[in-house]
């Protein structure tokens, strides 16, 4: 199941603030889900739902910063916005360094709050799109055989067919056949495009693969 509507997940131990903030965001046109603690958010949230998280820094049990760490390691790392009773430099610096979208006071002006939420949702959409593209590319690269991937690794590093054949101990014509299969499977026309796709898919970022 997948919800296409981006959702603002509010996490706060204070039920009254939770209700109030939820009302404001709903009235402002956002889809909202509320959670009374970081733990309940992590267990009850929709795994794939797009959106963002609006969390109180100080909570009993798992606090906001711990939630941020757990979220970053998950499959769906939603952008996180922090709310705090009063500005605390040490935790805000840490939160921002770990990639928090924003750090807001609970009584921050409404416009500031809504802007921050909008920005967080946009970022999520952007990141989500990037992640989807990466996944799609990976699926495409997954159709290649082991040998084809091996040849591709040499190609993206700019090596000639003759050199590749020597390295792999196969005939130069066989290398050409592999290359044709690769471009057909990945629907690319040039070596430049092939290199860009491999980079986008996060392939061959490590130094040259070891020779068997």
């Amino acid at each position, binding site marked *: 199941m997948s919800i296409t509507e981006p959702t603002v997940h509010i996490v706060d131990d*204070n039920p*009254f*603030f939770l*209700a*109030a*903030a939820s*009302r*404001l965001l*709903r*009235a*402002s046109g956002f889809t909202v889900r509320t959670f009374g603690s970081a733990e309940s958010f992590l267990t009850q949230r929709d795994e794939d739902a797009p959106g963002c998280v609006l969390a109180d820094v100080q909570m009993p049990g798992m606090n906001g910063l711990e939630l941020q760490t757990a979220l970053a390691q998950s499959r769906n790392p939603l952008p996180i916005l922090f709310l705090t*009773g*009063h500005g605390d430099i040490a935790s805000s610096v840490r939160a921002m360094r770990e990639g928090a979208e924003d750090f807001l006071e*609970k*009584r921050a002006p*409404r416009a500031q709050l809504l802007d921050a939420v909008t920005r967080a949702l946009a970022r999520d959409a952007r990141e989500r799109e990037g992640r989807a593209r990466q996944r799609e590319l990976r699926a495409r690269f997954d159709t290649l055989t082991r040998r084809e991937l091996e040849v591709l690794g040499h190609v993206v590093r700019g090596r000639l067919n003759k050199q590749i054949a020597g390295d792999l101990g196969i005939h130069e014509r066989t290398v050409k056949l592999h290359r044709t299969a690769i471009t057909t499977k990945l629907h690319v026309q040039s070596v430049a495009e092939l290199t860009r796709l491999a980079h986008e898919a996060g392939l061959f970022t490590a130094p040259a693969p070891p020779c068997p």
Partner: protein
Amino acid sequence: MAISWVTVIWSMVASACLTLAVIYFVVWWTNRSAWAHLLFSVTAAATTGVTFCELWMMRAQTPAELVAALRWVQLWLFFLFVSLVWFVRIYLRAGSPWLAWTITGLRTFYVPLTFLAGMNVDYSAVSSLRHIQFLGEPVTVVAGALNPLTLLGQFGVLLIVVFVVDASITAWRRGDRQKALTVGGAIVFFILAGLGTSSLVLWGNVQVPIVVSQCYLGLVAVMGYELSRDVIRASQLVEELKITESGLRESEARIKLAVEAGDLGIWIRDVVRNDIWASEAWRTVFGYAPSEPLAFDEVMQRVHPDDRDMVRHAQATALAGANGGRYQSEFRLVLPDGGTRWIALQGRVEMDGTGRPIVMRGASRDITARKHIEQETQQLRQEIAHAGRVSMMGQLASGLAHEINQPLAAILRNAEAAELFLQDASPDLDEVRAILSDIRADDERAGHVIDRMRGLLKRQTLDARALDIRSLVNDVAALVRVDAAVRHVKLDADVPDDLPHVRGDRVHLQQVLLNLVLNGMDALNGASLENRRVSVSARLDGGQMVELAVGDTGSGIAADTLPRIFDPFFTTKPEGMGMGLAISHTIIEAHGGMLWAANQHGGGAVFRFTLPIADRTSST
């Protein structure tokens, strides 16, 4: 040729006595105050005379010759007895004076009687001379009728015995047992012996010449022996004195060393003549030249005006004999060059027999360095205490802010949401109602937070007991004393002795009082040095309350700030938290009293607060 034993013995006695007379005369000559030596010399010389007269009598060929000898004997006896009596009086430092004078008078009476009237006091008529054998040779003795005056003479001799016995007993009782026994005993023995011999001869029962001089020789010998013991003792004393003197020099050197090591200035004040002597070290510290004359009142002028009364009081108390005349004080000195020094003074007053002060001795030490360290320490301690106070209030304030922030944030977001809902063409009124009810609830929650804080403050703080206002004020005065000195603020406290105890928490009331006093001192920043005063006073306010007031001589409270000074976070100080008066206000209200502020007519502000009198039945 046969040896004349009489001549030999009598000559020997005479020369022995004469030698002693000459020796002791010379001794007296070198030390004129040794009257005992002169008197002994006279006794010895007189004994010589008596001895010669006896020899003369024994060799007399005619009655006239014998009578002349008898007459001369009276002169020598006069010297002998009179010198003997006064010797005893001086040497034993005892003996009845009137007896001494009676004996002297009696003997003096005899001399003109024998010489001028030509009377013979022993014999009324010398009828003939007789010659008898004595020590193997013929000697002359008298035969004749006795003069009744002889009895008077014998009586005079007995008086001497009485006098000596009396003097010896007195000396014995006083503790001079050796002297009393030797001198007294010997004199009595030999005089009685002489008296016995002469009586035997005079009353004619025994046919021997008068030989009293031998007895007197014994007497002279004992006296000489005793006096020579004195000479030995004197030389021993000289030795002891030498030892004592070197001991004195040694201890003087030690004291000097101690005085120098302790950096002490010594001064001695002659209370009777109002004269001050002071050591060089003292003069250096007090800023006086070595020979500059010192007067008490002038020296007092160098004491810091704020400390003068205290120093005067300490000295007056010591002079009145309190604490055994000991006193000590620490005060500031303002030197002519404007410098200030701290001095520690310790001394003692010496009284005469009637308890009147004679001399005041003291040692003073420059403790400026120590005082500076003490002040720095004190200041540091206060800064720490202040920081503690600030951080405690800071925590309280930040806790308060955080607790209140939650409902305030909820109210804000709810209100914003309601606004948005109401913009809708067909607003969801149920939602708006729910929002309004939540806003009300959040407002109540914020109110509860404040109530809880206030309640916390009240409950935690109040350990109410019966308290003595004086000790409360003294505690706070002690806390700020150094601070006040550093900031040149004079702190006055006026609390009557007879105030009843109040009911309250000591620590928190101290905090209130401390807060008000420190505020008062802060208000004096920038005030002239002559007029920097904070005064604490207390009085009965009706039958139920005691009112305390803390006033300052600063510029007072501006009219527009006066209504706000008890508001939390309201402050006029750059580093102020604005919590001191607010908390003080809460504390006093929690005690059932009131705290308020006003400007004084003469300038400056005054803070007054009331506290309930402790219930006498419950106070302990």
